[in-house]
Structure formats: C-alpha cells, structure tokens
C-alpha cells in the first residue's frame, strides 16, 4: 500500500508560538486515519498545516508530490477537501449554493448533476432543505452540509476536523456512519481529527496520538484501542 499523504518533520507556528514540533505521519490510500489528542495537542493545527493555512516548515507530500509552500487554494484543487473546525458553512447562502461552492474548484463538471443526486442520497435531510439558508440549519445538519460540501469537490482525501463537536450522540453516530460509507464506496481517504477517541478508533484503520505537538504513539486502530495508557487517558475505562 502506498501513502496518499506523507508528512515529515512538520512544524507550525502562530506568531512566535510554535505549536507543532516535528510531526511525521502518513495516510494510506483508501484508509481512514485518525489523529487523537487532548485539547491543545495541535490536532486542528495539523490539519491547517497540511492545507498551508498556518506558517509551517517540513515536508508534506500528497500523492508523491510536494505540496508544502503551495497556496491553500491550489492544494484544494489537487484533491484535498477540508471540513474545518466550526464547520465553516456559508451561513447566509442556501444549502444548494453551499454545495455549488464545494464544486467550484473541480475540473470535470460533466458529472456534476449526478454528484448532487448522490449527495442528496447520502444526506436526504439536505435535499429537503435545498433552498433554505444554511444558517437556519441545526448543528447536525450544518455538519452534514460541511461534509457534503467537501465531497462535492470530488476529493481523494477528506480532512475532517472534530465532526462530533457539540452534537448529540445519535447525530454523531449518523455522521460517522456516512463517513464510513463514503470511504468504502467512494474510495475517499480520510484524515480525521477527534477528541472523542472511542468513536474515532471504531471508525479508523490507523491512529496517531498527539501530545503537545508531538506524535507519542501510533499503530493500527484496533491495537491502539487495547493499549492501557490510551484506555485510561482517552477512553475512560
């Protein structure tokens, strides 16, 4: 198996404060990889660094090609979709317009109509609310819209930042179910950042544990789940 995303010695800083200290990890093609960690460990920053939204150094390779130093817009055009922390939906635009924007950067527009259909199949709720302003959706629906918008760009890699944040357990389960389906059927690789370690480890194939900007442990999700330290600190049993 070859790595779709390969990150080595990644450092990132906000102003004078360094947040990531030489991070290395990989996302295998077709897999779901998760990065776990407590608040402030640098999870969100890692995703932002991959998209070059913060000042970084170190190497980031996507599909073998160096993408560090490129602009965020160009990285998105290469096939990385990012659902940011706090969802980042366009609250004043309609659901449909949000999806249209998701497809803004893609090259082949022919299959566009087909993709709308597919998205509405995955997220029937959005089909009902097509013309509604995104800001009027519930939190769970907005999260779904954020994922849907990301998928509209037909990405090869989906970066998901805390999709469970502030949502009811039932809604969270629904969203994770959809992510798994998308991974299996659409062959979209996923890099998931989560505080809720239990649900993330259930979903992922591979996991990394982040502490204050460093990878302290990594391995297949199933094995990580059995680890005593992880169980005590992150799973709570």
């Amino acid at each position: 198996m070859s790595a779709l995303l390969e990150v080595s010695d990644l450092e990132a800083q906000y102003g004078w404060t360094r947040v990531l200290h030489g991070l290395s990890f990989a996302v295998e093609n077709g897999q779901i990889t998760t990065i776990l960690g407590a608040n402030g460990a640098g999870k969100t920053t890692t995703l932002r660094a991959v998209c070059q939204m913060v000042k970084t150094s170190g190497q980031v390779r996507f599909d073998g090609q160096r993408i560090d130093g490129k602009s965020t817009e160009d990285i998105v055009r290469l096939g990385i979709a990012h659902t940011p922390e706090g969802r980042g939906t366009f609250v004043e635009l309609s659901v449909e317009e949000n999806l249209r924007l998701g497809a803004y950067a893609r090259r082949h527009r022919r299959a566009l109509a087909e993709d709308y259909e597919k998205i509405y199949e995955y997220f029937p709720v959005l089909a009902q609310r097509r013309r509604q302003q995104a800001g009027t959706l519930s939190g769970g629906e907005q999260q779904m819209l954020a994922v849907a918008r990301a998928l509209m760009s037909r990405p090869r890699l989906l970066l998901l930042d805390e999709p469970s944040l502030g949502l009811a357990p039932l809604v969270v389960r629904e969203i994770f179910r959809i992510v798994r389906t998308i991974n299996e059927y659409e062959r979209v690789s996923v890099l998931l950042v989560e505080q809720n370690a239990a649900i993330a480890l259930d979903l992922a194939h591979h996991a990394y544990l982040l502490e204050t900007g460093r990878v302290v442990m990594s391995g297949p999700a199933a094995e990580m789940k059995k680890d005593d330290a992880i169980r005590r600190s992150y799973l709570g049993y």
Partner: protein
Amino acid sequence: MDILIQQVVSGLATGGIYASLALALVMIYQATDVVNFAQGEMAMFSTYLAWSMLQAGLPYWVAFSATVTIAFVGGLLLERIVIRPVEGAPVLTIVIVTLGLLVIFNSVAGWIYSYIQKPFPSPFPSTPIKIGNVVFGAHDLGAIGITLLVLVLLFLFFRFTTLGLAMRAAAQNPVSSRLCGIRVSWMLGLGWGLAAAFGAVAGMMVAPVVFLDPNMMGGIQLYAFAAATVGGFSSPVGAVVGGILVGVTENLVGTYVSFIGTELKLTVALAMIIIVLLVRPTGLFGRTVVKRV
C-alpha cells in the same frame, strides 16, 4: 401635480445615479469592510477618459464601453497594487489610503484636464418627451433606463453565475472560500473592478447634468454615502432603494421647501446620514452584525 411627477422622475434619474455609486460602495464594503472614499473620484476620472475618447472622435457607445472596460481593469489593478498591502490593517489606515487615492485622482484630473468645467454629451436626444401634460427630459429617462439595465445585469451575475456566487462567498467567509478553492484575493480585486466600472457608468450619466470638472463628484459622493447609509451598508438592495429615496427626497425638498432650495441640499444629505446613523445605524435593509471582541 404635473410638476410633482416631473420632479419625481428627475429624482428617479439622479437617484439611480446615487444608487449606482452607493452600490459600488456597498460592494466594496461587503467584500472588504472598507468604504472607498475615492469611489466618486474614480468615477470622475473615468468620465474624463470618456471625454478624451469622444474628443478623439470615437462614437459615444464605443467610448462608453471602452471607458467601462478601462475602469474595470483600473479598479482591479488598484486593489491589487494599492489596497492589497494594507488588507486587514486597522480601519483608519485603509480610510487614509483611500483618501490618498481621492486626492491623487482629483489632482491628476485637474493637472491633465484643468479645473475649467467642460460640457459632456448625453447619448439621448435633447428634445423633451411629452406624455400627457407632463414633460420629461430624455436624458433623465435614458439615465433611468441605463441604471436599471446595469442593476439587472449585476443582479443576474451575482445570483446565477458561479463567479458571482464565489464573489459573494469570498466576501462572507474568506477562510471557507479558500477551502473551496476560491482565490479570495482575486475576488476582492474583481469586486473593486466591478465597483469602478459601475462608478464609471454613474459618472457618464451624471456628467451631462452637472458638467465635467474634477470636483463634480464631491456632492454626488455625499449623496451616495447618504444612500448607502439609508439603505444599509450591508445590503445591495438597500443601496438601490436608498439611492432612489435620496434622489427623490432631494428633488422634492429642493422644490417644495423654500428655505432649503438648492443652497442647503448637501446639508440635507448630511442630516439624513446622521439621523439614520443615530436612529437605525444598520440602515433600512441592513442586518446587525455581531462582532467578537
């Protein structure tokens, strides 16, 4: 009654011009949270370019289109070159930069073309049009038509094209727009370009009425400010309605309120701005934006 209708129509004509300029202001404000104090002077300068082309013997509509195109490119370049370095700077900094542009445009126009007023032709016939007992100026009707046409085009552009959608998105949420692959800073540049093109149309429509001189936009810009304030700086529809309201009010007050006449017209605009800002700072159509501290 006839005079009333006549005054309303000529108010609509000037109102349309204020609306165009106000819309230009609002477009830039929405995209960048900046009021471009040089908007009027940019329009004035564009009108001088049109005048030069007409002097050179170009047909009116050729000069018109060329001017709009040049204004568009010029606005885009201004944003890229002059405004870009201070993007995200404090309000005061950006206000000062646009004021700098204002005086530069004003003085360069005076430098090249002198401060003597010049007549500027109207593309419409000079014979008045009579409907019933009411006489309308053909230029007034034509200006209303052109303004309407431009407004409709702009509406269609923002509502239905992907580029228009991307521009709206970039104005609302730059971070997410970038994540959609939208080149946000170019969208801001496009916004400036469109605003400048718009202003150029307004300038060419108003110049036959007020005559062409480097200071011709001073008062008009004040009315455009009033229009944008009345309608609300966050609402394009508001800018249009505000422009028309201000134009009609100005004409009616000037005609019927004797102590104001034409001498205190600017003061009326000032009063409108201050009253609206005090009573309803978001304007008639604006939304309240909650700012985080």
